[in-house]
């Protein structure tokens, strides 16, 4: 059978890939894609723990569902911000958005 730690390693790897995407990407939309990967890593953890610890306690699945809601909210607001910025500044490169330096 598959030990629980395999799922944890998988989710850790996915989280780190997402982190790299968030830190290294120029485009704001690509940064949001990285955030999605990180949220999914969290969900894999939650579901694996639910299954391996006590499937009659639904906490893991409920939290996974809340993460879906958070991901949807994050995408909705994040992408709207990106589009709004694109309209006013004509760019979605995160590095060029430095108006609030001080």
């Amino acid at each position, binding site marked *: 059978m598959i030990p629980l730690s395999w799922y944890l390693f998988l989710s850790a790897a996915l989280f780190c890939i997402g982190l790299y995407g968030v830190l290294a990407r120029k485009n704001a939309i690509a940064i949001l894609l990285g955030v999605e990967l990180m949220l999914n890593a969290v969900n894999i953890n939650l579901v694996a723990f639910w299954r391996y610890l006590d499937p009659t306690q639904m906490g893991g699945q409920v939290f996974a*569902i809340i993460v*879906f*809601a958070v991901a*949807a*909210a994050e*995408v*909705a607001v994040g*992408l*709207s911000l990106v*589009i709004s910025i694109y309209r006013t500044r004509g760019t979605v490169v995160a590095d060029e958005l430095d108006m609030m330096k001080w």
Partner: protein
Amino acid sequence: MLNPWMFVGLFLIVGLLIPVAAIVLSALLAPRKPNPIKLSTYECGMETVGDSWVQFKAQYYVFALVFLIFDVETVFLFPWALALNALPFFAVVEGIVFILILIAGLSFAWRKGMLEWV
């Protein structure tokens, strides 16, 4: 019997392989004589101007946004509908509160004129 999800997995594989087989069969049997005119983009005989990345109406995006929120919320209603028979009437009230919050969002979007196609 097989685990239902194993069955679904097999079904997905076969369901994708059949269209692939159709395309492969066609690729093996059909002629292939490309030329630049044939491969050009079909735009009613006009010369194609620029690339196809036309800027489309932001309204599509706004509708997708409203859809995203509603999709997530209606999907959350499935466990509610499922467990309704086994729960007291209070559960119905909880679900209705949930739906009313949803409808409040819809009426906000309506008021703001987001649902207009301008």
